[in-house]
Each structure stands twice: as structure tokens, then as C-alpha cells.
């Protein structure tokens, strides 16, 4: 007799995912995944002014909006056969890079880590699934203590995005043909000052904690692997091409 297991929602993600699996004699015999927050962005994009695409696609997700803006404007560059000037290319990279910094922190501390780190027994940490929590109390507390600090870093990262992106999340500063801003000396020094704090947190707090927690779950690196071949394309434009 097959046993049906339903996990809904799967975890804290934008878009809501549901997984149903049938297990027989300890093996998965059937599985279904459902993306339950369909909005139809591809359909909405049809018949619109193509320049609006970067504003529309960013609204897919508040964790990764700038990646969608970047993909849209680069596609438009290609369609309109325009090459951004150096200022535009570099600024787009900085805006996208700023988003990378805070969205990885957000993804780890506020979305993914709570499957491995047992949060306090109060909202918003409950209700939760009975997780596979393996960390000793002391290590667990280290990660919990960083939760709030990471929120401050996320806000600071948004300030980096906003410096030339206009605001964060969801930026105005990337358009077909380049970026909209001309950086001032004051903005550059403001950016550097904030970036230093974010980079310091990533290097000295975030990454050591990732490795610390990852060490307790080494077996999971071998679960669910496919053919182990991945295609990876760079998203930061390195030169006029």
C-alpha cells in the first residue's frame, strides 16, 4: 500500500510550492509539484511597450527583483541593438551586485536556515514543521542571535541598491541602454561606507555560520543529486559585447 505525503507549503519561498509524493516500500513511486501562486507574467507582458518589461518582471519576487530587471534590460539592449556606455554597464553591475549581497543574507537567515536552526517558540518562528534539527544548543543560539542582525544588514543592503537603483526592493535605475544615475562623490563615499559593513558581516559572520551549520548536515549534500552537470552563465557584464 502506497503512502501519500503532502508538504504544503514546502518552505518559506516567494510563490508558494506544494509537493505530493507517494511512497511504497520505502521508495518514492510517484511525485507531483505544484506552483500554487500562478499570476501569468508571460501573458501580462504580451502586447505591451517592451520597455515596460523590466518594471513588470521585477514584480515576480521581492527577494530577487533586480535579477529580473537586469535580464529584461539586457534583452532589450540586444533587441534594440544598443550598447550601454561604461557608466551604465558598471552601475548596472553595482545595482545587481548590491542585491546579491542582501538577498543571499535574506535567503539564508530568514528563509532557508530556519529548516536547520530551531527558532524561538514564538511567532513568526511558529507554526513550523517538525524539522531535522541537529545543532547543539550553543550553535543553534549563535544562529538565532544573528537573525536580527541579518535584518539590519538586509536594510543596509537595500540602501546600497537604492543608492543608484532609486529604491529597494524593485529598482528604477536600470533602463534599456544603461543606467539612469550619474553618481556623485557624496554618493560614492556613502556607498563605500555602507558596503564595508555589509561585506564585513558576510565575511566574518554569515559565511562562518553557513559552514558551521553545513558541517552538521554533510549527508544532505548527497541527497537528490541529478546528473551533476550545471550550466552557469555570468550575469555581471564585464565589457562592451
Amino acid at each position, binding site marked *: 500500500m502506497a503512502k501519500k505525503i503532502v508538504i504544503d507549503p514546502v518552505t518559506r519561498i516567494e510563490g508558494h510550492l506544494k509537493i505530493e509524493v507517494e511512497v511504497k516500500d520505502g521508495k518514492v513511486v510517484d511525485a507531483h509539484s505544484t506552483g500554487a501562486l500562478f499570476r501569468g507574467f508571460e501573458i501580462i507582458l504580451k502586447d505591451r*511597450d517592451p520597455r515596460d518589461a523590466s518594471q513588470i518582471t521585477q514584480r515576480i519576487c521581492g527577494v530577487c527583483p533586480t535579477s529580473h530587471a537586469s535580464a529584461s534590460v539586457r534583452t532589450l539592449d540586444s533587441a534594440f541593438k544598443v550598447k550601454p556606455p561604461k557608466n551604465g554597464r558598471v552601475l548596472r553591475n553595482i545595482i545587481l551586485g548590491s542585491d546579491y549581497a542582501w538577498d543571499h543574507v535574506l535567503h539564508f537567515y530568514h528563509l532557508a536556515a530556519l529548516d536547520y536552526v530551531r527558532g524561538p517558540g514564538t511567532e513568526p518562528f511558529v507554526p513550523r514543521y517538525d524539522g531535522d534539527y541537529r545543532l547543539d544548543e550553543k550553535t543553534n543560539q549563535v544562529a538565532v542571535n544573528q537573525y536580527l542582525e541579518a535584518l539590519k544588514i538586509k536594510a543596509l543592503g537595500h540602501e546600497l541598491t537604492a543608492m543608484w537603483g532609486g529604491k529597494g526592493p524593485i529598482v528604477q535605475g536600470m533602463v534599456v541602454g544603461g543606467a539612469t544615475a550619474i553618481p556623485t562623490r557624496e554618493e560614492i563615499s556613502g556607498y563605500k561606507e555602507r558596503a564595508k559593513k555589509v561585506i564585513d558581516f558576510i565575511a566574518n559572520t554569515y559565511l562562518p555560520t553557513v559552514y558551521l551549520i553545513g558541517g552538521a548536515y554533510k549527508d544532505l549534500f548527497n541527497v537528490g543529486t541529478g546528473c551533476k552537470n550545471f550550466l552557469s552563465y555570468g550575469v555581471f557584464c564585464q565589457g562592451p559585447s
Partner: protein
Amino acid sequence: MVGERQGHEISMLDATIDMGKKAAATLAFGTCASFGGIPAAKPNPTGAKPVTAIFEENGIKTPVVNVPGCPPHPDWMVGTIAYALTKGLPPVDEYRRPSLFFGSTIHDNCPYLKYYEEGKFARSYGEEGCRLKLGCKGPETYADCWQRQWNNKVNWCVRNAICIGCVQPNFWDEMAPLYEQTTG
């Protein structure tokens, strides 16, 4: 679908009706909840509707305060909640937006208004001047971004580029094309 209860799927619509009925007041946070927003943009593939429309169709009398924005400013949400808790529901405009935050247009308060009055218009980004010809929706957009700014006052849309009118009921369809002059 937003989840399951006792093995039955719950849609956002079910949750809105279920919780809306019991609430003392409902705060529709963001342009999607307030006015339909991006999922309701033409051709509205999923039949998305604002909270007010769902309440009306289901005879729910719970008062609704709309706090639009895509995204909405955190101060608008915290400010509205704080007002509601300490003084009751805030005074709202014809679209049920708190006048405290959405009381006047971006354009009428814009730091670049003097350029508009002088007839000096920016023709490309980075050029000094009013952003109207670049597509700025400031004249028809009611919000206090000009003063409040974003991300601890680091920047705001018009300084960086243009206003796209994200707090308005006719955002997306009537604001499009975003990068063409449609107003003023």
C-alpha cells in the same frame, strides 16, 4: 492556493473572505490587495481582484483601508497600523488611502517642479530638468515619496529616474507605456 487546512486547499480568496468577515477592519497592503495591481493587469489571467471588490461581492461590511504601493513604503504600513491602534481608522481619500500619506501629488511637491514651470524638461536620464517627458507619472500620483524618500532617505524614484505611479488604482494599464509621457 495559500495552504491547507485539514487536508483541504485554501485559496487566497477563501482566506480573504474567511478572515475579512471576522475582522474589525482590514488593511489592504500593497497595490495588488488595494487595486488589483500586477496580476490584475490586462488580460488579468487569474481574475485577480482587490480586497474591496471581494468584500462587496460577498456582502462583507468590514471597513477597508488601502495602503497601496509597489512595493508600499514600510512607514505607510506602520503609520497606518499605529494610527488605527491609537486613534481609530485614519481619514481616507476616495480610493480609501490614508490622506496622511497619499494626500497630494508627487508633482505638486516635486523638487523639480521649478523646472516644469520654467519649461525645462530632461530629455534623457542624468539631464537636469523636469522628468515629465521621460514618462514621469508625478502629476497623477498621490504619495509623499518626495518628502519621505526610500531606504532611510537614500534615494527616491524621481531623483533616480521617474515616478511610474505605483500607488494609483489605474497602475498598470492606464500608466502604460511607463516610459512615454501620458500626463501633464
